[in-house]
């Protein structure tokens, strides 16, 4: 205590709220730098000290509404610019649906910022090195006494007259409080190298951990159980079966659904000779054939089958004209074979067109051939 030699303040303790109110009123007439320490906020003390209303509410209003507008701008950017999606048939920007989020953001930012600014800026906390800490005065005012603290910094302060004032007000205990001016200056500050080093280490460590966790950890066991599942894939070996394969051949004498073999697959001429078009020539069949021809065939063969491809010729060779004598002379079955199994660079269309659709397309090709090169009898 020998180094604590500078007078900080003269303090006086009182027993009741009435006495401290009176003391505060009297002190406020003489001093500017003084404070009242009470175990709970005493009603009317702000007026007695002449302090007026706290302006802290402006923090809530300004920060809360600013953050709400920023959130609204963010949502507008997401839903109109960066990620426009129609959800539940609503407009891209659907304000009523954003109200819950905007409200929560307002409350969250308003409340959190108010508390933080109140403690840090309005009250100057956290501060554990104030001269009043660890004094008998503080220990009583945090429990059951009401204290007034006249600071030595005040221009009107004079120890003798302050003592006299406190005595005349009826203070039960008057006590001077000293502090160490040197130590006060060298206390913990935000620029303390230890503090900065510790904070920096924590920040870097956390960043590295978060980076590793989200880029590596979540792809390792056991977090990868959704992408890596114990299952049998067709190329893997398998101990269950005698031949050691995962994928088994169909049972002898059976055919898998959708795999009925085509007896004419390798023999287009026979198909052309013996298979006839089972569909009648009706408006419905021709409409279906037209639709399928235009969506599946016309890209290469042209809308009228003239071989005028719409595709870039360097990447896709143009399909032949369907009006050449060779093709006109083909039977329906022969054309159907080409559609079903492909020919030269033309792939099979068995996956894209059903059996009936293929026959309908054949009828439509016949109609095209007749309309592009009509005979005398076809014309009126």
């Amino acid at each position, binding site marked *: 205590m020998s180094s604590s030699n500078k007078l900080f303040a003269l303090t006086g303790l009182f027993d*009741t*709220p*009435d006495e401290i109110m009176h003391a*505060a*009123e009297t002190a406020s007439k003489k001093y500017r730098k003084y*404070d009242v*320490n*009470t*175990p*709970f*906020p*005493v*009603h*009317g*003390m*702000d007026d*007695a*000290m002449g*302090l007026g*209303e*706290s302006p*802290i509410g402006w923090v*809530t209003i300004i920060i809360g509404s600013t953050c709400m507008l920023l959130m609204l701008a*963010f949502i507008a950017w*997401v839903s109109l610019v960066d*990620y426009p999606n129609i*959800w*539940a048939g*609503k407009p891209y920007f659907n304000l009523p649906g*954003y109200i*819950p*989020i905007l*409200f*929560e*953001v307002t*409350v*969250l930012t*308003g*409340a*959190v910022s*108010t*508390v933080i600014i*109140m*403690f840090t800026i309005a*009250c100057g*906390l*956290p*501060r*554990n*090195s104030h001269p009043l*800490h660890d004094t008998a005065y*503080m*220990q009583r005012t*945090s*429990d*059951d006494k009401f204290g007034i603290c006249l600071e030595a910094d005040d221009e009107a302060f004079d120890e003798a007259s302050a003592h006299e004032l406190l005595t005349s007000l009826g203070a039960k205990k008057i006590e001077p409080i000293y502090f160490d001016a040197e130590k006060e200056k060298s206390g913990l500050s935000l620029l303390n190298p230890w503090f900065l080093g510790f904070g920096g280490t924590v920040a870097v460590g956390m960043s590295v951990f978060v980076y590793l966790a*989200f880029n590596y950890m*979540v792809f390792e066991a*056991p*977090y990868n159980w959704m992408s890596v599942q114990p299952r049998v894939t067709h190329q893997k070996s398998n101990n269950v079966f005698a031949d050691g394969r995962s994928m088994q051949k169909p049972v002898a004498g059976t055919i898998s659904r959708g795999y009925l073999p085509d007896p004419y697959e390798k023999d287009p001429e026979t198909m052309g000779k013996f298979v006839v078009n089972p569909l009648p020539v009706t408006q419905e069949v021709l409409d279906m054939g037209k639709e399928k021809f235009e969506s599946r065939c016309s890209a290469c063969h042209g809308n009228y089958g003239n071989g005028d491809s719409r595709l870039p010729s360097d990447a896709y060779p143009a399909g032949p004209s369907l009006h050449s004598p060779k093709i006109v002379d083909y039977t329906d079955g022969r054309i159907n074979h080409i559609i079903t199994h492909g020919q030269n660079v033309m792939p099979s269309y068995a996956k894209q067109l059903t059996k009936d659709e293929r026959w309908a397309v054949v009828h439509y090709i016949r109609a095209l051939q007749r309309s592009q090169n009509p005979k005398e009898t076809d014309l009126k």
Partner: protein
Amino acid sequence: MQVADKSTADGIPDYSVEPSVVLKSPTFHDITETIVKPIESPPSFKWLMALAISMALFSVELIGWGVSFYYGTGMWGNNIPVAWAFPIVNFVFWVGIGHAGTLISAILFLFRQKWRNGIARFAEAMTIFAVMCAGLFPLFHTGRPWLPLYLMPYPNKHAVWVNFLSPLVWDVFAVSTYFTVSLFFWYTGLVPDFATLRDRTLGKDLISKVKKTIYSVLSLGWRFSNRHWRHYERVYLILAGLSTPLVLSVHTIVSFDFAVSGLPGWHTTIFPPYFVAGAIFSGFAMVVTVLVFIRYIFDMQHIITIDTLEKMNKIILLTGTLVGYAYGMEFFIAWYSGNLVEQFVFINRAFGPYAWAYWIMISCNVISPQMFWSRKLRRSVPIMFVTSIFVNIGMWFERYVITVTSLTRDFLPSSWGWYNPTFTDFSLLFGSFGMFFTLTLLFVKFMPLVAISEVKGIMDIAKPTHHHGGDH
């Protein structure tokens, strides 16, 4: 104080004057001593026993979470068609429990209900613990609890943003806001009390020094200065003002999780007020359950008075009747709407295969609180304890009935199903009580259970007798 003494002395209550919150005419110092006694004295046998039981239950929950974490949500009973079962039931149940804390600390503060001061701190702590219990369920229900970041709108490598129109996203915002604001509210109230504890810790041994350091850090160096109190009181008012609409919004949004979907039995406009009333109802019941225990364990009958508990019971009666009205109104609207599916769902609730759950809900929630019309029963500690437990059971079953009956039997009979909870489900349900009580018991041992400065501020001797130019 005079009034309270008189009414207990001759048994004739005087309803004309608000009875004092704090009995026995203590001094300021007595208040400090009583409240910090559990913190400064060695743990009692009763407390250690309670903690051991709670931690045993808590470890059951931890095993349940570990199993769910490692093997995934397949360990639970929910599947199609009951995709939402115990996890959402427990989530809504615990969030609802939390609502009483905010109601007591914020709404009753705004209404200047001074009786709240004895229980406000505890109720706020309960809010925080309940929301912690609640938050784990949806987190694990996502299937990948290590990726909670995906719930938030942040610039990610998938180039995808969350759907801001989804009630589930509203839920994320609402519950996280609720938790954060409650935590700040609670901590703001604790700061002066930590400072009181700091100034009482004067020992020179190592443990006292460590304690003092912790209290100093937590108290932020609070000096009880009136230049700080004036900001502090205003902030407390602002937080109460912000929390009041917040608490209403949270359970409203939780009810949107159900109400916005098109499922019969969920798709009703009564859900938001009905859920909020139910939340307050269950929360007050939980506060009564735990407070009855705690005032007994820590001998605080004169701070948490029977008058306070009686007022809690009145609110339980009110909200319980509101909830009963909502149950009736659901049936009325199902009939009045003329919607056959809606009508079927409600008849199925009351008389279908889950009728047992429905009638447990009705008898616990609607019938059992009606005994609080009697002043004698309202002031009887054993009665209120049993009733509050009934209410908790009933409110859990309310969410169970809403979730499971609607999902097992919706529009198409071909997609009807059944729900069987698994062992893991039950371990998480009962274990979450273990977590809640463990946190609560640790809180009452290591932090001031009652707001010291607030209780001092409402005592009769705390008010200056003559006013100096104030507005009151």
